[in-house]
């Protein structure tokens, strides 16, 4: 008996605790039940798959063309495995040739979606046409004009302290080639791990300029590689390319919209292409590549 009376307060406490716990659980369940399920967005149109062209003229007159196919919006991101993505999108079954200057040059498949030829006779100022036929994806063609090679008249880089960050600052001079020209200057902090990790959307600083203000003369400018701390001894790759106006316009649009939040909230745009029936760009230009080690 006595022990029974003694237990009453303890039972009350237990009941109170149980009630409090029950109330808390009920409240939690009510609150969690009140978080509505997200709503699906329906009717998103499917992408029409197209052939994507990228090209590169390698010093020594070798031409390399990368052929891939477009993919769904949600099929890849910065975090995707680059090799798995490339395996998914590369085109390995295409017949590819370049016609120009009265000749036709077939390109050989080299693997990883790359087609190449070493015997293309490229004449500055001449127009060349790329023909691609993939049984799996379709056919496209693209025209471009060979641009003259322009090298840096001078280029250098230093370490600079901006007040918050230690950054690389590049100073360059360009002597303009004859005629109207459009230039692209790229700089990248070369780190083995970053190159391996950032194959998708690598962090490249790009400056676009045309020669309207210095036609036939020279221009000197400088810029910093932002958001990337450097130290003396680090290596930079700096490139100058003389490109055609179509590719210049494309890159200008890309530079305005490609980064982070700006890309997410910018107005939609479908970028121009010089590939008829496809996407990407067919270019024939040779970049001037400089590797610079940063001093103090």
């Amino acid at each position: 008996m006595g022990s029974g009376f003694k237990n009453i307060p303890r039972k009350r406490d237990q009941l109170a605790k149980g009630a409090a716990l029950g109330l808390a659980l009920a409240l939690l369940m009510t609150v969690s039940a009140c978080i509505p399920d997200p709503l699906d967005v329906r009717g998103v149109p499917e992408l029409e798959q197209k052939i994507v062209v990228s090209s590169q003229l390698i010093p020594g007159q070798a031409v390399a063309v990368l052929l891939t196919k477009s993919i769904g919006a949600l099929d890849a991101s910065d975090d995707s495995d680059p090799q798995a993505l490339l395996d998914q999108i590369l085109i390995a079954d295409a017949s590819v040739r370049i016609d120009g200057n009265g000749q036709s040059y077939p390109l050989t498949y080299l693997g990883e979606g790359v087609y190449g030829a070493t015997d293309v006779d490229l004449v500055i100022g001449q127009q060349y046409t790329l023909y691609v036929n993939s049984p799996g994806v379709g056919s496209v063609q693209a025209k471009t004009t060979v641009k003259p090679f322009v090298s840096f008249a001078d280029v250098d880089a230093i370490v600079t302290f901006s007040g918050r960050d230690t950054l690389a600052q590049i100073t360059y001079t360009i002597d303009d080639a004859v005629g109207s020209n459009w230039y692209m200057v790229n700089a990248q902090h070369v780190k083995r791990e970053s190159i391996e990790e950032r194959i998708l959307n690598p962090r490249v600083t790009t400056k676009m300029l045309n020669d309207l203000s210095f036609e036939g003369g020279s221009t000197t400018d400088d810029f910093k590689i932002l958001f990337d701390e450097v130290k003396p001894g680090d290596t930079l790759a700096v490139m100058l390319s003389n490109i055609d106006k179509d590719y210049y316009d494309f890159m200008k649009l890309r530079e305005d919209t490609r980064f982070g939040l700006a890309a997410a909230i910018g107005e939609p745009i479908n970028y121009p292409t010089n590939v008829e029936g496809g996407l990407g760009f067919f270019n024939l230009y040779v970049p001037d590549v400089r590797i610079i080690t940063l001093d103090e």
Partner: protein
Amino acid sequence: MEVPYYFYDLNGKLIFNPTKNDKLELSHYGGDDRLDYLRDRNGDGIGQTTGYHSGNNSQSFRWNRNYGNSWYHDASLYRTAYRYDIHSTFGTNQLLAFSDIRDLGIKFQVGNDSLRNNSSIQMGAEVIHHTLSPNVVNTSGTIAELLKSSSSRGRIATETAAFIQYELQPAPKVRVSAGIRGSAAILSNTTYFNPEPRLAVRYMIDDKSSIKASYSRMAQYLHRVSSSAISSPTDIWYPVTDSIKPQVADQVGIAYQRHIPSYNTMFSVEAYYKKMHQLVGYEEGTNLFFNTDFESSLIQGDGKAYGFEFLLRKQAGKFSGWINYTLSWSWRQYASINNGEWFHARYDRRHNGAVVLQYAFARRWAASMVWEYISGARFTPVIGQYAITSPSLTGVDLVPVYAPINSVKLADAHRLDFGVKFKSRPAQVMQWQIFVGVYNAYNRANPVGMLVALDEATGQLKYQQPGLFGLLPFVSYGIRF
């Protein structure tokens, strides 16, 4: 990811009758919405903080006076302010983009509703002083080298208008309302002027039904500019400038209305067509907020909207309420967008309706129910991407491919609210009421923002719209003295 979100509204009104012919009103409204989140990829509490904040408030003073012989005046002085900002902090970098608009206005109107031969007249004038900062960017840290802070802040436009409207009954079954409003925007170098005529003719078919035809022209000196890319409430208001012209719209309508006295009920249906000129939109690829040369990205084009509106209303009795439904289309056309072809406006919401019912089941008790439905707005999703070699040749860049502009409809929004009201005895000096109910009774998401989620049925990723509030019980208490 945590999503702390809150909002509040505060409003109040004081009404004072110094004489039996004068009525003074002072009112205030204020509200704020805040959303902040931290994107912390490494889980170390250090990441990118992004926030959205919007707030508006308004104050007005109104003086209404009756002079006898049915003449009256209505004068008001008001101020409104609206602002939103998006701020982001990552590392030592800070970025703030905001847009705000402040209006100061004065309006004076005189009228007489009982002139000879069942006619009436109203006339008045209004001046509004707009101060806008449509898109101000402030940056600090390394990002300031990439994106300079805006050098200019405010834009000022003064809008004036005068109007006269006369309503008469030229024949027993015909009533005509004709008026004209002249409006102007005065800038430092330019003045825009627009006459805005309006005409409405009502014909009584019998003592219960009528038809009405109307035409009106409207000019607007503040443009609402909407993005096609996102679904957050970040529209920007932009004033006319030397190069941005006013928006002008012409609207025609025809309506049929019928009263059913035995049920205290009214039914109406109206069809309308509206043509708009010099609407403002963005060029393709415009960087919306982080853009210090904003005006150069604005373009002007045309719009059209048409539709039908239905209304069934029961105004008296224990059981009252209404059902309204609008079926509408809204289109835009800009020379440099969508190859110059017409496309859906962002706010092209096909169906919009509500059912509002109230039942007074006792002298001091009433139950009510509101069900609202609105079709989703339009947006332009990324539907694909492709890889091209990066300019440095050390990798590949992923380039997005967009759907045709505004071609996809966001999820529809609908919800059911219901409640019970208990009020004080009618004889009491201080009147009060308690309203208890449930908001969003079936816990449907009210869409905000966009996210990408895994579709477990297909294994594919898909777009989803999360909602901030689901079922929400509420209690409100109001007093009037």
